[in-house]
């Protein structure tokens, strides 16, 4: 999961895109070490030290990871897309906003 998330964040670094987590770990200090070790640079809400309460409860999350993709207007557009399908979903929403998501080298020369 982390390598894919890292590459998604890196690939879309200069695009109107954000990856935000809601973390349900129990040990916050241990988690901070994980962030460093796994180069997790994107922000996450702290769910309060477990999976049972907090934001995860409001969003009725019972399995992890659970993923929502939200468009630029704040509308939920996809759920639980993973791997290449997640990239495709995000790219489609960026394209809707008129953003060119192709890698620089494959764009027509200006």
């Amino acid at each position, binding site marked *: 999961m982390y390598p894919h998330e890292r590459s998604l964040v890196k690939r879309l670094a200069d695009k109107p895109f954000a990856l935000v987590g*809601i973390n349900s770990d129990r040990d916050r200090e241990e988690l901070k070490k994980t962030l460093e070790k796994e180069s997790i640079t994107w922000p*996450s809400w702290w769910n309060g030290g477990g999976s049972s309460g907090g*934001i995860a409860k409001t969003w*009725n999350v019972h399995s992890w990871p659970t993923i929502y993709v*939200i468009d630029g207007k704040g509308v*939920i557009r996809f759920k639980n*897309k993973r791997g290449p*399908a997640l990239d495709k979903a995000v790219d489609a929403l960026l394209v809707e906003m008129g953003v060119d998501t192709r890698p620089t080298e494959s764009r027509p020369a200006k």
Partner: protein
Amino acid sequence: MKRSLALCVLAGALVLCARAQDAPGSRPDTRPPLDKVAAIQAEYDDAVRAFSEAYQKAETDAEKQKLSEEKYPKAETWFPRLLEIGKSKDPVAAKALVWIVNQDADSAAGRESLGLLLSEHAASPDLKEASDALVYSISPEAEKFLRTAMEKSPHDDVKARASYALAQVLRRVANVARRIKDDSDPDDRKNVEKWYAAQLGYLGAVDSAKAEKEAEDLLVAVKEKHGTLEAGWGGTLADRAGADLFEMRNLAIGNVAPEITGEDIFGKELKLSDFKGRVVVVDFWGHW
């Protein structure tokens, strides 16, 4: 005594087991005799315990993998004996069938057990646990069982738990049926078709929007009529149904995502609306 019991099980000779337990010289057992299902449960628990001890002792990942593949106690080993009890007039017959349903409702024995529970034990309070066990099932047998329990059971708590479980089943069925028809994500479609290969006919006939509407109506009714009753995994049915209704009404595709506020891992305030104007992936995760 444990060993003699295990050997008897291997030989499948229950009569001999009973004798071995009574054999002179064995320590007197003052505990009340277990009913037949509780005795099988104890055997199964012992097998799981023995497996986890061996697993913890295994030193390499390869050893662990080999153990998992070869020695993990498969519940279906016990299904034939339980099914036999389930078909008998034993007072724990319904419990035996529920045990099978709990372990694997979608197996052949599980489906047979569901049928027997309906035909022979329709008034049993044990249908409550069977209903809980079907929340993750996708099969016409599971749906039929829950509909019948909901309509015919004389017990309010069975009706309530069956209604709640049916709502969950309908939501899952709607979701999977939609994914099978979705051409935009061929990998997901292929996976789902593989996972539910045996149920493609059943799923193909599902009207997802209609199933979701029925699920929503069921949840509303459960919340209103049976809200104070306990849910299968703790909490009240009102809490559970309320959370599901919130998800269906506010977190479906096409809904504006509800605001999220709170502090991040480092204690800094963070709001979902801070990211407005951007495409946002919201990922519920844990490092475990």
